[in-house]
């Protein structure tokens, strides 16, 4: 689609209103009556759309011919009471991976990482993973119950939760199965499908520690929490209590507004650094306990199969990982010259300390520039200058986190875990740039 590819590029402006075959015809046979009328038609059409003076060869028609929006009345306020992206951004949406699931209620939609900036995911583009569909909950009728090993089981209304002391923190949210399709071989074309079960938001809510303190939880016996949703699946997950007391939130806010229904409106658990399935949406209950619950999503799913046939159970932490989001798979470099290689890095154990980028498949590395603020268990944006001279290149990124952990190559990860564990694939990603500028998802070996 050359015309798409060239859109927005500055084109020389010759007599572009003349059809090419007519020009060739005229130059071969000269002007006759029929051609004269054709020419007049072409001039008329051209001048009708051109109010500005005739174009000179070097003039950009988008400058010289004032566009319609510069010569017309704009739209009124509140044309969109809730603002919408420009229609020119219609391609940048959440998408499903065809064939991944056979019901849309227990399914996934992926965040379009390839075209996002910075460290925050717009709420409407936050990836979705539902286990039994999403629901619209009336906040007036929603309750949070805290029970189990507590002095007094408590019930909170949303109004009460919003009255409590709150904190706002930026954290990433990654599904444990993110990049799960890529364990065995390359299976998807773009970063949206390979890494798009990843988003980050500023979440606002009440610290779990405060709520448990209010209920008088049993510090001596309690080791775990059960989080439970109010949707049809009433999904449950066992949460590490020690970690939850550090930084988990019962959150109602996302990026300055209430949570989106697909992301748990009006209440969800935020468990920083831990895989998404534990961030129970439409949260209705926290139970304090002294032994894990072995819920469906921690014995039959979200268990990591190892080469010896055992399943790792209660795998929760998302270890350090990074990916180049642009240029990335399915895209094309149109011309040689400067490019800003950019991507995201994160760690469920702390901060991003360093990101390195290789353009030769991991033989040589140089430090990327990290964009601040660098926050714990949040996305960190990185950049790396690159001048492409038309050669084949293998782009990779590698993160080191604040514990000193270095993101493994695919070979290093597979050597320990095999290729069938589905979950927690944090291997380095490789994008191959061909001499034709096409970028493809590849695995090296």
């Amino acid at each position, binding site marked *: *689609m050359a015309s*798409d590819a060239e859109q927005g590029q500055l084109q020389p402006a010759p007599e572009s209103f003349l059809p090419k075959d007519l020009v060739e015809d005229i130059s071969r046979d000269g002007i006759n009556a029929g051609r004269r009328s054709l020419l007049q038609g072409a001039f008329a059409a051209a001048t009708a*759309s051109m109010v500005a003076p005739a174009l000179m060869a070097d003039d950009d028609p988008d400058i010289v011919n004032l*566009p*319609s929006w510069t*010569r*017309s009345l704009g739209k009124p306020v509140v044309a969109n009471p809730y603002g919408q992206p420009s*229609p020119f951004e219609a*391609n*940048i949406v959440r998408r499903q991976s*065809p064939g991944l699931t*056979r019901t849309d209620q227990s399914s996934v939609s992926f965040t379009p990482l390839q075209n996002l900036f910075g460290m925050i995911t717009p709420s409407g583009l936050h990836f979705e993973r539902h286990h*039994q569909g999403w629901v619209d909950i009336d906040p007036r009728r929603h309750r949070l*119950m805290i029970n189990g090993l507590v002095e*007094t*089981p408590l019930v909170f209304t949303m109004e009460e939760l919003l009255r409590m*002391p709150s904190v706002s923190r930026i954290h990433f949210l990654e599904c444990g199965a993110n990049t799960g399709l890529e364990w065995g071989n390359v*299976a998807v074309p773009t970063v949206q499908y390979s890494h798009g079960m990843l988003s980050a938001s500023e979440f606002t809510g009440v610290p779990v520690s*405060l709520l*448990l*303190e*209010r209920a008088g939880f049993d510090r001596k016996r309690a080791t775990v929490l059960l989080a*439970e949703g109010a949707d*049809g*699946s*009433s999904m*449950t997950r066992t949460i*590490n209590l020690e970690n939850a*007391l550090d930084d988990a939130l019962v959150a109602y806010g996302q990026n300055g507004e209430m949570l989106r229904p697909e992301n748990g409106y009006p209440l969800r658990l935020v468990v920083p650094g831990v895989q998404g399935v534990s961030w129970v949406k439409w949260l209705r*209950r926290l139970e304090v306990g002294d032994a894990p619950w*072995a*819920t*469906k999503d921690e*014995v*039959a799913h979200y*268990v990591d199969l*190892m080469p010896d*046939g*055992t399943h*790792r159970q209660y795998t*929760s*932490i998302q*270890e350090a990982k990074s990916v180049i989001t642009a240029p*990335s798979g*399915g895209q094309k470099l*149109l011309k040689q010259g400067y490019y800003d290689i950019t991507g995201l890095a994160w760690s*469920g*154990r702390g901060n991003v300390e360093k990101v390195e980028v290789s353009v030769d*498949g*991991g033989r*040589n590395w140089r430090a990327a520039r990290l964009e601040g603020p660098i926050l714990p268990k949040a996305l960190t944006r990185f950049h790396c200058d690159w001048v492409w001279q038309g050669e084949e290149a293998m782009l990779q990124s590698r993160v080191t986190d604040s514990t000193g952990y*270095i*993101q*493994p190559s695919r*070979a290093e990860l597979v050597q320990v*875990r095999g290729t069938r564990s589905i979950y927690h694939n944090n291997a*380095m990603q490789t994008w191959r740039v061909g001499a034709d500028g096409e970028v493809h998802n*590849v*695995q*090296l070996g």
Partner: protein
Amino acid sequence: MSSWAKALVLWLCAMVMTPWTLALPEGLDDLGRPATEGEVAAWDIDVRPDFVGLPPGSGDVWAGEEIWLAQCASCHGDFGDSNEIFAPLVLGNITEDDIATGRVASLTDPGVTRTTLMKVPTLSTLWDYIYRAMPWNAPKSLSPDEVYGLVAYLLNLGYVVDDDFVLSDTNMAETQARMPNRNGMSLDHGLWSVSGVPDVSGSACTTDCNVLVNVASSLPAYAMNAHGNLAEQVRDWGPYPGLWTEPAAEPEQVAAASAAVEAAVAPEAALTAGGCSGCHQMAGQLVGPGFAAIRAKYAGQEHAAYVRDKIVNGGAGVWGSMPMPPMPAVDEEALQQIVAWLTSGEE
């Protein structure tokens, strides 16, 4: 430093990092109220592997089969083996040896489809999940006895219990001790806690590293369009347009077809870009007449030339004294869309 002093230091550190765990702000006790017993019972339906929370009751394989065929088989298949909607629950590949050892041996075989029964080590999980979330479109509509029966039927399909088996709250524990993969889980990993120890570590090499740079895997050409046309999934005016992965279509045909389909839908982008919306609204007079009135008056292709002329050159006197100015800023594509829409009303 004595251990007591160390504990104190840790306690103080904890106070700095998580102040809420130590002191509640004054007045916070007013927020939240005690839950009643009935409320807790209504929501606290979870069942742990030690069967805390398990309601009394029982059900046999035959009763379970009957409910299964009525409420479960449409998704999971008559024998729990369907792969149509969800992954198979049971495929009849559990061996006596698996049940004896509590390890499903075929989990090491990549050629064997993993079923739920091959993985799940705890019977409590099946009971808890079916009771809380099934059936798919009517969760929480099953009674405890029905759930006992369904779990008995599933276990029977997997050769874990006999045809005449009755599952109840009194034999859940001994039945769980026959689960085929009860010893197949491992907690020996670093992914439970933030401070866990990683099992894999990457290399820190930065120069002339000894790595293989052969492409071992890439998408075959025929699969490039499996996720749709990639050119339409990126910012198409940005520095990295998407690859056109769809078989080429004739642009004119596509445009003509989509113009016909979209004629009935207001071309809002064109109306806005062309400046029309400044003076016209959908219904009712604004500065000029409402689009609805225009569409009613000029319904039919035969009016297209007239309407086009009025937009391009303007006019006056048809709808009142306010003249319609010429609208040269409307580009050709927008003009065609607007004319098609304005003349596409019912005649």
